């Protein structure tokens, strides 16, 4: 592994970019929560609050040709990958201008332009898909990396097991990113896994595996560089467990009976944004105006997105069954 390649490049510009991306996700989702209470957004809405460092640390390390598979808590991944807030928000409104034409909603953001393959609401369901994408790349000798994001809850599913084995057995260029936020809905890790060290569990399949502090965007990025580099060069899978925490409820229907408020508060203090921003400020790498500027830019982007989503149009009801099958020439 080339150590030089993997070192994070913490220039001021890069730091600001990392911070901005995390703030973008956060503000976007605050807005989504608000819009949910206004019933502009419906269905299940899963927020990424607290986990921003994972998507922001990993996804920008990927190249354009690489592929991303996510689960249902994927707003952050989509935005960082390059989906516009407009397209994402319009999707949650269910408008035609949404990234999935409005048919998917929050759990099913897709974007062909950025090789973003969802948005899968079956826990573990995206893993075999990632295996297949990577298999195609391997068979064609294309040096692409498929990054597959999922929660630690997925590790109990049979599909996880089958996918890990296939990836290692067939030497597939998949970067598995496990977002271990300690809970699967209300089920704590220790209640769902006999082996709670997920990266160790993955290593049992004989693939490269490491755990990283998922609340530290710099650490995540560094690990992601090593990992993506390794996947691309060795054409083998790599498992990255990012240890993180979800600050909010699982979805909008969750009374959080399963954990103490104090636990959440303690984690909030270690939040990826406060922590990184604080560190940058302490090290004089950014100034209050920088943050103000970011906030202003994000607010403007968001306002534009809301306006766009509001102005969006409804798919005519006559088109209901469209896209069940491809529309062919005949």
């Amino acid at each position: 592994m080339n150590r030089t390649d993997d070192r994070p490049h913490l220039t001021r510009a890069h730091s600001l970019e990392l911070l901005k991306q995390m703030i973008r996700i956060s503000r976007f989702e605050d807005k989504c929560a608000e819009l949910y209470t206004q019933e502009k957004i419906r269905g299940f809405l899963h927020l990424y609050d607290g986990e921003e460092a994972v998507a922001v640390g990993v996804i920008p390390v990927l190249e354009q040709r690489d592929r991303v598979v996510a689960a249902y808590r994927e707003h952050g991944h989509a935005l960082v990958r390059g989906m516009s807030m407009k397209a994402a928000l319009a999707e949650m409104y269910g408008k035609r201008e949404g990234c999935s034409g409005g048919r998917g909603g929050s759990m099913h953001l897709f974007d062909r332009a950025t090789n973003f393959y969802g948005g899968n609401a079956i826990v573990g369901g995206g893993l075999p898909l990632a295996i297949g994408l990577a298999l195609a790349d391997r068979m064609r000798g294309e040096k692409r990396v498929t990054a597959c994001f999922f929660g630690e809850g997925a590790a109990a599913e049979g599909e996880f097991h089958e996918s890990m084995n296939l990836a290692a057995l067939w030497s597939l260029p998949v970067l598995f990113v496990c977002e271990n936020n300690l809970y699967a809905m209300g089920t704590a890790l220790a209640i769902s896994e006999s082996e709670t060290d997920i990266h160790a569990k993955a290593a049992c399949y004989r693939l490269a595996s490491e755990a990283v502090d998922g609340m530290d965007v710099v650490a995540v990025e560094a690990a992601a560089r090593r990992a993506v580099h390794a996947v691309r060069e060795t054409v083998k899978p790599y498992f990255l467990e990012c240890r993180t925490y979800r600050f909010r409820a699982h979805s909008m229907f969750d009374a959080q009976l399963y954990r103490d408020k104090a636990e959440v508060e303690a984690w909030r203090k270690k939040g990826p944004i406060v922590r990184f921003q604080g560190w940058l400020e302490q090290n004089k790498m950014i100034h209050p105006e920088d943050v103000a500027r970011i906030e202003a830019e994000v607010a403007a982007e968001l306002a534009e997105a809301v306006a766009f989503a509001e102005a969006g149009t409804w798919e005519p009801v006559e088109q209901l069954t469209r896209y069940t099958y491809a529309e062919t020439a005949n």
Partner: protein
Amino acid sequence: MPAATAPSATIELTYREAVREAIRDALKRDPRVFLMGEDVGRYGGCYAVSKGLLAEFGPERIRDTPLSESGFTGAGIGAAIAGMRPIVEVMTVNFSLLALDQILNTAATVRHMSGNQFGVPLVIRMATGAGRQLAAQHSHSLEGWYAHIPGIKVLAPATLEDARGMLWTALEDPDPVLIFEHIMLYNMSGKLAADAGPVGIDKAAVRRAGRDISLITYGGSLWKTIEAASALAAENIDAEVIDLRSLRPLDDATIMASVTKTRRAVIVDEGWRSGSLAAEICTRIVEQAFFDLDAPIGRVCSEEVPIPYPRHLEEAALPQTPKIVAAAKAALGRA
């Protein structure tokens, strides 16, 4: 409406609470009963059905499982064979596909292939249906599809009485019983006898008697169908509404008695149209009462599309009262 029972105190409760009471009751009555599934305990159940039960019965009997649908459904099968009476909860019917091998290849076959040595007295409950904009991986109605499988029984409680009463009868059944709870019913509230208990699971119920046409339905569609019957009454059409209650086995006798009387039928079923339970019912009517029919049988089913997210498309995809009214009128030549 079901036959009147002796007067007793009534309580006001929701369908969700009725299911919860049924589970509580079973847990209290029989030490062999336990509830097992994802987030049934600490979280209180995905649809809050089992809220409070963990505190009352403890984590052995209100057993949170890992995300392992095949594993814990199979565990329910094994525990049932060993003499327990497990209630397995699968959050949503779409996830039950992960457990289908265990359901079809094991639960439904063990009695037969063992020559009656082992049976599987297991109850599997799951949420079904659309209406909450949960899109293409959380909104399907596959209960009619499950009803194809010999060796299992399939129930669809649509009323508070049935939500409260079917579980116990299902638990007494020596064979696997799947109970489908429509997500749009959980918040439905109404009155129920305080001492409401077990109900039979082998008969369909005539929820509204009528002479002109039989509207045959079950589960979440029952209430839309009753609404349609009211709308039809306003146009002097007297519709009979049949709630199937059990989708496997089907109560042919009640269906045929109704159709023979009305000579016309519309079947309302939230499953996708092609290969729907509605098709089976239509076919049975043709087989058993063809010469009593005055008109083709109508079907109001879901459109053949993975359920889309936006409200207006989701609504358009599902059976709705106006469609039922229109189908009934068409069957009566009054379209």
